[in-house]
């Protein structure tokens, strides 16, 4: 976070936060978001800061940032995007999600269910990118089901630029999470109600 404070946030700032998973970092996502097409899409949508949690993949991040900086300079400062990164966070990424929430920004994440559940509670637009290289893993199914319910957008490493543009419209029409009423049942139960019912507490 030290790097981002060099370019302090103003009311006009708009933060895109990318998290790749701490234990087995999703290096393709780091490369993809730092690709010229993604950077241009971010610039076009008015983002001022790009913050990346790279986990243990520091070298991938550093290499990609060099390429990204070269691209931004060659464009002659048309896209003014401050790029910063960090490896781990002790506070479960709460500060980063808050930053996105306050700046009306965007979260791009690997499709781990923990991060999805945490990020959606900040009511921020979320793009999840399933890691297709993982075997027997249900990230793809979960991301697709969540997208069908309009909670988030599913992206992949080859089309981040289009999904970044879509995210601006999605911001206003995304469903609230956790849902107040969901599913086909009219009387939706909370887990507390299920517990009470199991024990026969009906009052």
């Amino acid at each position, binding site marked *: 976070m030290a790097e981002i404070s060099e370019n302090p946030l103003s009311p006009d700032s708009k933060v895109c936060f990318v998290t790749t998973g701490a234990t087995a970092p999703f290096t393709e996502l780091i490369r993809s978001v730092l690709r010229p097409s993604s950077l241009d899409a971010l610039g076009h949508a008015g983002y001022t800061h790009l913050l990346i949690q790279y986990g243990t993949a520091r070298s991938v991040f550093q290499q990609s940032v060099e390429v990204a900086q070269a691209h931004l300079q060659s464009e002659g400062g048309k896209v003014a995007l401050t790029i910063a990164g960090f490896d781990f966070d002790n506070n479960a990424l709460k500060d980063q999600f808050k930053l996105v929430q306050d700046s009306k920004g965007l979260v791009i994440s690997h499709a*781990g*269910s*923990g991060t999805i*559940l*945490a990020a959606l509670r900040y009511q921020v637009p979320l793009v999840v990118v399933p890691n297709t290289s993982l075997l027997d893993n*249900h*990230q793809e*199914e*979960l991301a*697709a*089901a969540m997208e069908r319910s309009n909670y988030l957008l599913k992206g992949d490493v080859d089309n981040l630029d289009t999904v970044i543009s879509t995210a601006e419209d999605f911001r206003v029409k995304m469903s609230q*999470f*956790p*849902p107040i*009423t*969901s*599913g*086909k*049942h009219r009387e*939706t*139960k*909370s*887990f*507390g109600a*299920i*517990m*009470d*019912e*199991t*024990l*026969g*507490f*009906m*009052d």
Partner: protein
Amino acid sequence: MAPPLSSLYTLSFLCALLITLFVGASLRLLAILPRARFQPTAIRRKPSPTRVLVVLGSGGHTHEMMYLLRALDPRTYTHRTYIVSSADSFSAARAREFERLLEDKIKDEQITRAIQKQSFQGMKEGNGVLRLEETEPGRPACVGPAHYDIAVIPRARKIHQSLLTTPFTALMTLLFSFKPLLSATPWIPDQAPQNAREAAARDLPDLILVNGPATAVIVVLASLILRFFNIKGANSRDKCKTVYVESFARVKTLSLSGKLLIKVVDRFIVQWEELEGKGGRAEFWGILV
């Protein structure tokens, strides 16, 4: 004249004995296992002290369990026991944090109530001291370290542990899970229960909440054994009701723990509609985490 005792040591007698035991055990199992669909049983009144046992395990499962528990009412669930695996300091810390937040929430409610009351009385008397009431209206909220405990049991299977030794470590987990099932660790050691709430904490849990880790499967198995032999009246007093919640990440297929437990838990809850009715009994009430 009675036949000599040695006539009992025959193969046919052994077979007969085994078959009798097998039939008896099967009948008993059929009697204690839940029906296909959950049906609410006897209606209880809320003031009865209630102990709930929550099995935590590995990062993701613990996260989801904590989201599930956000609506837990400490006025109803008067004692909470959290079972964590050894070397899982993360889950133990999350349980403590959850209890601390629960305590803060209740305190905030008390302060708000006191301020409301004060501002009402203040119009008449006008003394500026805020007084928090020791006794609340209705049922007291049971928060604070006396109302929860964390039980640590050995891990069923370590990462990269060989499959050959897993049955032994799983057996150890099973043996160690009886203690927290039979009673919570008392806040003050060696003190007899002082009231009905403390007595409930030293009794079998009324409710067991699990969601997926291997430890959970073993704890449910242990609770079935208690019900099978009706230890401490586990079955006759309707204790140890089990609720399994499948992970939110499971959209189309059940997890291994889910497949193992679907027929034996009292309620099996899924969070995606496609899984509703699995095993003839999976319930769907929307996303709960």
